[in-house]
């Protein structure tokens, strides 16, 4: 195929369009976060009096201080971290085992299990709240963090399993067979050879499940009522009272809630980028 070198003008146009589109996307994605922060640092008395401005004439950290000291937000925050962390770990562990099994073994009933897992993804969550409430109540799992972990895990495992399966499918079977001939058991080959190669997939799955659990509102709202077990998305609703909404504190709490997710993604981002692009091209 002939290759035609692009002229300098054409390259400039390409560059401008490329980065222009990226800038538009970034603006669209990040502007709500900026607005969250802007409202969080705006003093309450200026919130409505200044009209719409890109930056307030005065800023304050008072909303953050009040959220941390005068509300139950630290408790909600810890609850969310426990629920999301546990859900991410347990779901990824189960999904990795199930994904490996789907990827490597042929057995009776495998197709049925896969279809059933797909079916679980077809129902709107709101349809399932009542039956799940009925199931969890006699087990004593309503109003508890453990109940949320169980429900979130159940809902995240199918998708996480398919995600992990695709990563295992991308690793040649020859590698574990070579390891088994070299002296490993199958499990040893999985742990020592396959597991290190699946780290990007594990990071992607952890990230996906963690964010899903971190921001889940519907089940948390329906299954939990005591302040001890409230997660932060539900906790944000406490800033809405009958006659007013404390936007400053709500935005400060929301901004604080971004921090653990940001830290989590910062820690796994190296694997995540590999994980999300793995298998896209022949390496």
């Amino acid at each position, binding site marked *: 195929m002939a290759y035609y070198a692009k002229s300098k003008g054409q390259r400039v146009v390409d560059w401008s369009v490329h980065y222009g589109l990226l800038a538009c996307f970034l603006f669209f994605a990040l502007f709500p976060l900026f607005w969250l922060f802007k409202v969080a640092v705006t003093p309450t008395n200026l919130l409505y009096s200044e009209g719409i401005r890109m930056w307030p004439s005065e800023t304050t950290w008072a909303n953050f201080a009040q959220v941390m000291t005068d509300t139950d937000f630290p408790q909600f925050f810890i609850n969310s971290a426990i629920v999301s962390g546990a859900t991410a770990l347990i779901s990824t562990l189960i999904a990795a085992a199930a994904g490996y099994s789907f990827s490597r073994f042929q057995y009776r009933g495998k197709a049925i299990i896969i279809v059933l897992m797909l079916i679980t993804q077809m129902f709107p969550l709101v349809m399932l709240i009542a039956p799940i409430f009925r199931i969890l109540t006699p087990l004593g799992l309503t109003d508890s963090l453990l109940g949320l972990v169980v429900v979130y895990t159940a809902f995240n495992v199918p998708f996480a399993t398919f995600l992990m399966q695709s990563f295992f499918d991308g690793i040649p079977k020859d590698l574990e067979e*070579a390891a088994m001939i070299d002296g490993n*058991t199958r499990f040893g080959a999985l742990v020592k050879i396959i597991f290190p190669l699946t780290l990007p997939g594990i990071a992607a799955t952890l990230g996906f499940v963690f964010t899903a659990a971190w921001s889940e509102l519907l089940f948390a709202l329906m299954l939990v009522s005591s302040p001890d077990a409230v997660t932060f998305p539900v906790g944000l609703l406490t800033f809405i009272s009958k006659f007013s909404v404390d936007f400053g504190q709500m935005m400060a709490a929301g901004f604080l809630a971004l921090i653990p997710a940001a830290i989590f993604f910062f820690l796994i981002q190296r694997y995540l980028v590999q994980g999300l692009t793995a298998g896209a091209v022949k390496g």
Partner: protein
Amino acid sequence: MASIQITEATKSYGNTAVLHGIDLNIQDGEFIVLVGPSGCGKSTLLRMIAGLEEVTSGSISINERIINDLPPRDRDIAMVFQSYALYPHMSVEENISYAMTLRKSPKEKIASAVNGVSNILGLNGLLERRPKALSGGQRQRVAMGRAIVRDPQAFLFDEPLSNLDARLREQMRSEIRKLHRKLKATSIYVTHDQIEAMTMADRIVAMHDGYIQQVGTPLEIYDKPANVFVASFIGSPAMNFIKGTARASGDGYHLQTDENHQIILPESADLKDQMDLILGVRPEHLMITEEGPATLPATVDLIEPWAFPRWFMCVSVRTALKSSHSNGLILQKAHKFM
């Protein structure tokens, strides 16, 4: 080193049988090549010897010990894969020493073994690299190194050269053969490439449709193929086949071809009058010549310039004939299949 006996071994996936009653004895130190077209079961047989596939029935023994139920790690065999199967997260040195590390060999012993192997295979200077930083040929060497460092009872090769370019393949072929001569290790080598089979094997096992068609030295397989499949699979350009009927004529027999030509047949006690025959003729046993007895009229249809001698593709009526000579077309030697 080891002798390997395969007795009445079969392999089925559900109701689909892929290997039927395989019997094969491999002597200590022998280099056996399993050859056949894709899907003939040669790789499955190799994987059964390795322990990566279960044996449905029959038995496989190494040194007279049945190993059907032994996991791969307890069979003391090494395998070189088509994809090389190098561990991407380990350096070359770690790849080579992995099996010894798992067996908890002393560090000094591992270091000296790795050193020895890298000297033999020319891997010095590459030991710190990861597999992705190596060329195809280098990866192939590392895979070989990983196999030989353990000093196993037998080596299994699953089409190890098929990912290399033609020149490198040629080079590695002779290196593997030299290595075998040096190590005197029992080796089973799977390939669909007849050139590899002919140039490397002590004995060739020709397979088709899950059956062993013939076992013999390369020259036996080439000169005395047991059936039409072996005759057609081995040899390039392929053997010519001419269908016809044996007719008694004077002291001997001739072949009356389906196109009504006559070819004098070599003497054979098996021939009978009116017997249906397929005559097999190697290209190098044909010559272009003047029309006369024992000739077939032919038209040169295509010339493939392919080193020396030039190969002629000729067409005679409906019979395609390939010849390696440019100055005649007579049958010098023929194989018959009844």
